[in-house]
């Protein structure tokens, strides 16, 4: 198997995935999610009441995360199984394209569509909070920009996780396990190290392994900073988290390419 990945086939495969999402009207799911995000904000009378503003921001940002994770997982999880089930994979791989390029293209297509959906949700959030609280209501714009950038990085990672899972698990098991992992890490990821330190013996070793091995999705979640209008992250911390996310996503996509290169078609 050729190890190199060329841009042109990757872009072609990714573009096909995005076209498919539009033509199959899957993009409407993002619009429905945008409504889900928008309705609580439109309905809430938060003008001038600081506590209520924070509450609504928190609720809406939680919805943005839930919707974004759902779109990312479901989109990425069906890319390669879809190709295999409808047998379009054979004429595709009969072209001068490597299996690694197909995997990267499928991941890139799913990630592009999911990032676009996430940006749409943040757009709704920013526009509506600004509208409802007379400008500046979205939280500090600096921290919001960081929040969006890190969220998009998390989307890349989540899509990579789902693409890898789609090659080793059934569709439903993949989406369920990936969703549990992402939710688990968002809720308890920051406590894993404390748990490892507090647990003696084999349990502690396992907790340490989980701490170092699992993707720390919670690092990409700046909701609290946005809600409370805290200062943005320091530049180096921000860059380090971005680098961590990109490296982790690249590792998962590389693992998916390896698994797919050995898969019998």
């Amino acid at each position: 198997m050729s190890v190199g990945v060329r841009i042109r086939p990757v872009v072609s495969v990714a573009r096909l995935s995005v076209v498919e999402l539009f033509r199959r009207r899957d993009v409407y799911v993002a619009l429905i999610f945008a409504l889900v995000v928008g309705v609580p904000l439109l309905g809430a009378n938060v003008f001038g009441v600081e506590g209520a503003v924070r509450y609504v921001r928190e609720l809406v940002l939680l919805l943005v995360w839930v919707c974004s994770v759902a779109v990312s997982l479901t989109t990425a999880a069906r890319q390669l199984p879809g190709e295999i089930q409808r047998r379009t994979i054979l004429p595709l791989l009969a072209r001068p394209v490597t299996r690694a390029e197909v995997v990267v293209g499928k991941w890139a297509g799913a990630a592009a569509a999911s990032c676009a959906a996430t940006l749409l949700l943040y757009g709704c959030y920013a526009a509506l909070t600004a509208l409802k609280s007379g400008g500046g209501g979205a939280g500090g714009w600096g921290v919001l920009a960081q929040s969006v950038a890190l969220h998009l990085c998390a989307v890349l990672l989540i899509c990579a996780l789902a693409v890898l899972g789609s090659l080793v698990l059934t569709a439903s098991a993949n989406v369920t396990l990936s969703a549990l992992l992402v939710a688990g890490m968002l809720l308890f990821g920051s406590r894993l190290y404390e748990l490892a330190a507090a647990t003696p013996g084999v349990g502690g070793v396992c907790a340490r392994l989980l701490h170092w091995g699992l993707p720390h999705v919670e690092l990409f979640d700046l909701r609290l900073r946005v809600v409370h209008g805290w200062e943005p992250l320091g530049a180096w911390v921000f860059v380090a988290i971005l680098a961590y996310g990109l490296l982790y996503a690249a590792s998962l996509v590389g693992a998916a390419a390896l698994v797919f290169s050995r898969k019998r078609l």
Partner: protein
Amino acid sequence: MPAAIDAQCVCKTYPGGGRGLADFSLSVGEGEAFGFLGPNGAGKTTFIKILLGLSRADAGTVRVLGRDPGETAVRARIGYLPEVAQYYEFLSARELLAFYGRLSGLAARQVRERTGPLLELVGLSEAADRPLATFSKGMLQRAGLAQALLHEPDLLIFDEPATGLDPLARLQIRDIILRQRQAGRTVFFSSHELSEVEMVCDRVGIVKDGVLKWCGPTREVAGDGERNLERLFLEVIGAGPGALTAPESLRL
């Protein structure tokens, strides 16, 4: 004549012990039209997958157009029409060709220039912008043929191209394949249709249980004579003339 396909002592076993190919050797010259016959499960698709680099032989050597079939570059010179025409139903025929053209390394201008005449050739000009979801099986197969010919490949591999098609669609597909053969392209043609093979191919190979049982010129077994292709096929696969006789209980 240099070999477009050269397979020597190829073995392929599937997980679970299923035998795909056993000590399989075959050589197909450049510009030759070769018919690849065999009953279901004989190993035809396994060999085609090896030729396309979709599967690897456990033992033996395979060269396609002088190169290892696992090399990406060699696939730029191969046109493949799969047995079951499954393409992206949300694309139109024109978009499908544009997609495969880009993957084959063609420039956008080349794809545009070739798409019109190709769709004309396969009789899909009027349906060029309709989604493939609305195509009949025959139309899908013709779209598949167009994608296989788009990059003007040196070697065409057709895996049972006429399966499930009506007589008119078969005739059209056969006509297109004959034109490719006349244009000097190597055609490797797997089929259950003995008459198709007889009309299209220079040589025929019959495979059974992963072993090439017979290989020779089509003219030796053409026509309705004593040794025609149908009789030879039945003889080689071990069915014999009795296989065509219905049991007593089923006779009217």
